[in-house]
């Protein structure tokens, strides 16, 4: 599995599409997108990560770089989103961070 992280609206999915030369309908079924949103509602993050790791590609936005939210629910979902990304990166063969549409490989062999 290839895990792509990076800031929101940084072009993670578009990078995959472009670099793999895949059309939307080809990539969409093979890619779990914006999975940070799934972490909040999931009891077992390991199980969720295991399920997501069956996709060829997973994308998630970095969400942990702001001030700790005052709202307990937001605090919890931010925490879980970060943990999920760590679990996914651990399972991934390749981890890529995309910033402004530009990739950097954090783990594994990947030709950008």
């Amino acid at each position, binding site marked *: 599995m290839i895990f792509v992280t990076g800031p929101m609206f940084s072009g993670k999915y578009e990078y995959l599409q472009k670099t793999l030369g895949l059309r939307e309908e080809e990539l969409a079924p093979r890619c779990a997108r914006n999975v940070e949103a799934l972490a909040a509602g999931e009891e077992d993050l390991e199980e969720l990560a295991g399920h997501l790791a069956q996709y060829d590609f997973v994308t998630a936005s970095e969400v942990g770089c702001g001030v700790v*939210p005052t709202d307990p629910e937001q605090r919890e979902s931010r925490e879980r989103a970060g943990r999920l990304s760590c679990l996914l990166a651990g399972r991934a063969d390749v981890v890529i961070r995309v910033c*402004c549409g530009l990739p950097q490989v954090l783990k594994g062999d990947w030709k950008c």
Partner: protein
Amino acid sequence: MLTLIIGGAASGKSEFAEQLAQRLPGRRVYAATMEPCGQESLDRIQKHRCQREGKGFLTLERYRDLGGLEVPAGANVLLECVGNLLANELYSPQGGGRAAVLGGVERLYERCAHLTIVTNEVFSGGTDYEGDTLRYLRELGGVNRSLAARAELVVEVVCGQANVLKGRLP
């Protein structure tokens, strides 16, 4: 050379951009985009003016319509920052949004030898946004991606240190 510098608040991106511009040839121009409204913005403008003092920049203020900015031919322009410029183009009645920012950069760059653009990393603090803020983030993300695609050099600044995302530092 077209350069994009991105970094978080107080990451040292302005100083880094100033130092980079100082290493490039041509008449140094600082294109300032922050429209002063209230004491806090005046203080911030003053802080940046002091920081640039003695570095040889001619400061020109331009809040919208960057393409109309008159600079000496072959100038070495530092534009700071896209976050303000886009907000002005999005929220002022005369503004032209994302297209005006990108079109303005193209027109300005035609007349410069070097254009160094500073933009903001504000996209890693959560996704829990809505309304105008979400729209602003989406538009700024789009502007940043377009500028990065166009630029020869893209640098993310972290704690004043350069993480080169594209190209090579001169």
